[in-house]
């Protein structure tokens, strides 16, 4: 089960909108597939991210993968805890393992993303 109040990308990122601030991370499925995460390369605060463009890189013992922004906007905050504890992405991907907060330009972009049911179907299809 994935949290029902989030929206998802096909690339396994999630986004939660509070007012005009969106919190972004990767899903449990992504974290499990990546295996033990050893490094998260995050953007600088103030940088602009574009929906579906890369905003960072996640490195695990198995692979290095791009992170894709679910929504456009300006990076307002990054999760500094991940620098010392990247394993938070594995242990609590929807909570303490969040990656960036974005000041959202256009909340209607969320409509393009998958809801929880559609994302679960995507994962079930493999």
């Amino acid at each position, binding site marked *: 089960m994935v949290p029902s109040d989030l929206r998802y990308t096909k690339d396994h990122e999630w986004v939660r909108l509070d007012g005009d601030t969106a919190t972004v991370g990767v899903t449990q499925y992504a974290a499990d597939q990546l*295996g*033990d*995460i*050893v*490094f998260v390369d995050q953007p600088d605060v103030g940088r602009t991210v574009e929906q579906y463009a890369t905003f960072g890189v996640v*490195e695990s*013992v*198995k*692979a290095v993968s791009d992170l894709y922004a679910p929504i456009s906007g300006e990076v307002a905050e990054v999760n500094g805890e991940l620098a010392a504890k*990247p*394993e938070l992405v594995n242990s609590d991907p929807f909570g303490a393992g969040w990656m960036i907060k974005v000041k959202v330009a256009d909340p209607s972009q969320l409509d393009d993303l998958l809801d929880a049911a559609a994302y679960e179907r995507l994962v079930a299809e*493999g």
Partner: protein
Amino acid sequence: MSASGPRLQPTIFERSKPGRGGGLVPHPPSDALDRIPTEQRRERPAGLPELNEAEVVRHYVNLSQLNHAIDVGFYPLGSCTMKWNPKVNEWAARLPGFANLHPLAPDVTTQGTLQLLWELEQILLEVTGMRAVTLQPAAGAHGELTGILMIRAYHEARGDTARTEVLVPDSAHGTNPATATMAGLHTVSLPHEDDGGVAVEAFRRALGPQTAAIMITNPSTLGIFESRIGELLEAVHEAGALAYMDGANLNAILGRFRPGDAGFDVMHINTHKTFSTPHGGGGPGAGPVAVNERLEPYLPAPRILRDPDGAFRLERPGERPTSIGRMRAFVGSTGVLLRAYAYLRTHGGSGLAEVTDDAVLAANYLKHRLAESGAFDIPFEGVCKHEFIASASSIKKRTGIRTLDIAKRLLDHGFHAPTVYFPLTVDEAMLIEPTETESVETLDAFADALVAIAEEADRDPDVIRSAPHTAPVRRLDEAAAARNPNLRWRPAAGDWTPCPD
């Protein structure tokens, strides 16, 4: 990991005892430092470890025995081509006339080496069907960068500066997108069809006036020959782009397919793989890059030239202004290139074709044995080239045992693991490349070991999960090692410091 297993030893620094040098290394004469300015001299003597000769030799011989190596056993590391390295190559590379040559020696005293390198170029051109070659790049990825920089120079010379994209299939080597980025271009990833080939529709959509090049690993990292190569290259050239072939898997096509004939404009050759050289752990390598007439003007300088009188020489600085310049000091990894030359000369043309036939036969035999056992998933059916993909996806769903566990357990059977979790497009992937130099008995023993581990996964998964049991160290915490890398030995606080920081 702490260095404390029963077969592990303290570092050479920790074993040092002041005064135990054996007296064999003479101290410098007392006036040796006179001409060194005082401020340039170190304040304390260099902290070299002091041991007697027997201790030093035993230390390193014991260390060397902790590794798995091709000289020890089977090493089916997919994409790396860990074939047997003939010892005659080592003899050739150690001939004092080659090995003791000073890199700054004038051309007139280096004719033998220059001739050998020049002849090696001619052989590589015959093998690849290309027009000209540079031996400079230090390994495959460096060759890729050389090739893409030449492509960029080609477009720029024509005033065609809007070409900023490089198409890279998802079955390509991971270095390809990195190369495009290093060269200041953007990577566009192409998906693959069910048969493992490039998805043609997606390819056609991605191709356009902004495309600088396509980089194709052929055969791909799925061990599959790109059967639509003619169609792809025709479209690439029609769009005004160039085609780069990652030749890392050349072992699968020697004497059977020449990339130059197929229309590729540029390719690299990993001589340390295809033409043998002990490699792994970051080197040494050599990645010559061969080009057709379109890219010949841009080859790195200096090229090795033969003058009309038969003398060999290096191109002079500025002699060819179109060159992208120097990619490496001197003429390349000469020792590795020498081994490639020895390998090519000892095999000859027909021998090279046989290398490929046997490499492909060995991979298909092993693939068939694993498919027949039913123990592993084989995602791409049909004939493979020199390597193939097996997957532990079903085993993982059934027992929780992952490819990584199986790879570790293989060490207990005396085999190096195949490449694991690559390519990324296959779940729980194992990329297996047996190479042509292994006997059928070795291939059978490896297949038997994999099947035995698959059975063990149902019966006694904990044995696999805690493997390896016979290696010098047990299961390493790879995540901790990557998160907190400890790359340099330091003495404990308060200890005598032989190597001051």
